[in-house]
């Protein structure tokens, strides 16, 4: 059997995490190629609905990356994100979807290495959890 290669979406905020991803790329840091990066203006612009939609369509993991708390370009954006996503994770758990498939983390523009580390960790976590069961389910 071929090895399970997860498909992962990473929402990166324009001001920190996307620049962090850029830095990781420029620094030639090695990381798994399973991640599709989507640039958003702020981590608060990522509605939990998007994560739900992605997971219910069979994406194996959703990563939301924003600026560190206190560093938000829009002052309070990531505070909102921090408030919403735990609820989204709990809802996933209640319905029986592994809440580890949705992760919220903070990566600043200077943290290319942290970006690499977060991606590597998340991909290996998702590999351990296995493929998203909703991929097979036809509702």
């Amino acid at each position: 059997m071929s090895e399970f290669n997860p498909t992962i979406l990473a929402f990166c905020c324009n001001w920190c995490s996307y620049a962090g991803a850029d830095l990781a790329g420029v620094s030639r840091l090695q990381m798994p190629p399973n991640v599709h990066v989507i640039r958003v203006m702020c981590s608060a612009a990522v509605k939990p609905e998007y994560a739900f939609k992605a997971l219910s369509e069979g994406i194996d993991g959703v990563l939301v990356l924003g600026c560190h708390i206190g560093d938000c370009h829009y002052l309070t954006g990531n505070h909102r994100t921090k408030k919403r996503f735990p609820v989204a994770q709990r809802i996933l758990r209640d319905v029986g979807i592994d809440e580890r498939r949705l992760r919220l983390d903070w990566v600043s523009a200077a943290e290319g290495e942290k970006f690499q580390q977060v991606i590597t960790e998340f991909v290996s976590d998702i590999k351990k959890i296995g493929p998203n069961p909703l991929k097979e389910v036809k509702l």
Partner: protein
Amino acid sequence: MNDLGKALAKIAFEERGADFLLAARDESGNVAPVLVSKGEDVGDVRIDVPYQLVMVLTKLYPWLEKGKVAIVTRRCDEKALNELTKRGIFDAKRIIKVGLACSKEQVAKCRCSDPVPSRVDFGEPQKAAQDELSDRLLKMTAEDRMKFWIRQFRKCNKCFGCTTNCPVCFCDHSCVLEERELVAEKSIPPGVVFHLVRSFHLADKCIECGECERSCPADIPLLTLRKMVNADMKELYKYSAGDEKAVSPLLTTLEGEKLEDDADVC
């Protein structure tokens, strides 16, 4: 007018000085909402059926330009009024609550954890009940739980009954569940995403009235899902919807932040 109607009219108009009264009454064997002004015959009032009067009030409120409205409220209605008042849909001064304590059978049906209104005018206060299904589900493995919910959600025929009849779903033309990017146009059943999104949107305002479950033609235990999410909210933020003191609706604002003008849109 039956005795109940007389008693209700007396409390609303004479004792509490209301100008209008909103109640549910008997209409040839069925239950229907009725709004009467002072002096009018309210008819054969019924309180045995949990009719969503708050939802009716939300629709009628813009037409009532002045005067106070008395409304028959169970504990859940009371909480719904609080939630809507927080979001600026009602003016608290214009609403008079006539408290109704649910019967034992009703409490058992709703698995209600908070059945007694702050002021009881009708009915006997009953003890709270437990929701066994949510306890059972949380004891299952995640895999079994998912199987259970998939089996339930598969029955959904996207009638939007749960949304239309929900007292705290107040967005008229901009419901997120009608966004085609999230729920595809010709999708029946609509998929897990429909129920996940609805759970999230109700997380900070669901008052556990159970109307979604009652109106669901497919008998999906939606109230259990709501109760599970509400328990999570309590665990995470010590927040329970319908609380008068918690002024900022939780997921749309930060602590102590004022509501913006568009607070009445989800």
